């Protein structure tokens, strides 16, 4: 049986870690870098940055089943399906404050590279406040071994 979650201990143990999105030093530990298709946040070792945040999963557009957000007879093919979920502010006061601080930091990150002033698909706002959207491909292309067969002879 799992232990009961202690929100206060979690907050105390994580709120000063730089990778915690709600921490004071989160932004200072991040840098945007180019990828082959766009930009990504990296750490001081030029590795993709792994941020951490805590939130409450919203029922809104929760699509994490075996076909993700794909729906039958939709316009998008199955191979483009994504797992999708949103997290909102937890009711716990400490974790709630961490969540708001995290959203503020993520908005600051967006402002560093956003040119249009309209930043889509990550931070949303509704009557409940701001939410963070996550997306992850359900399917990935298989790597063909044939690319290794035609090397120099």
């Amino acid at each position: 049986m799992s232990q009961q979650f202690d929100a206060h201990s979690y907050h105390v143990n994580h709120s000063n870690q730089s990778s915690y999105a709600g921490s004071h030093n989160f932004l200072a530990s991040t840098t945007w870098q180019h990828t082959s298709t766009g930009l990504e946040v990296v750490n001081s070792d030029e590795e993709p940055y792994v941020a951490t945040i805590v939130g409450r999963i919203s029922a809104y557009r929760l699509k994490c089943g075996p076909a993700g957000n794909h729906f039958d007879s939709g316009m998008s093919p199955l191979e483009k399906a994504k797992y999708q979920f949103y997290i909102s502010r937890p009711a716990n006061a400490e974790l709630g404050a961490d969540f708001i601080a995290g959203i503020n930091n993520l908005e600051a990150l967006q402002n560093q590279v956003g040119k249009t002033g309209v930043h889509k698909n990550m931070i949303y706002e509704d009557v409940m406040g701001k939410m963070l959207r996550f997306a992850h491909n359900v399917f990935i292309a298989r790597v063909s071994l044939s690319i290794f067969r035609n090397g120099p002879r």
Partner: protein
Amino acid sequence: MDEETKQWPIPDEMAQEFDAIKYKFEAQPLPLYHDNLLVQPQHANEVLNGAIVEVQFGIQHWYIKQTDTFQATPMKVTILKLGRIHVPPNYKCPNPSEDSDVPGQPASKKLRSSED
């Protein structure tokens, strides 16, 4: 084909579409953990709904069609506290005490016994 894709619990209505792509694409489960166990994809929505979670994620940006698009990509999702899980029943009786003898009302689901 890899075992994950071979055993992937795709809904029946998408089976034909899945068969068409499964040799070019492989399925990857959402890295969703509860008590250090990977949650199977067919149970993910149910387990996630209303839960308090820790998400470890990366952040990407694309500038597409004069729009700034961002994505938070989860690398690991850990259930810290389950929400109130509502399992939709496949059968609902309006009054359990009367369910078996009321004409026009279906009987409650019986467990199969060894005598059956």
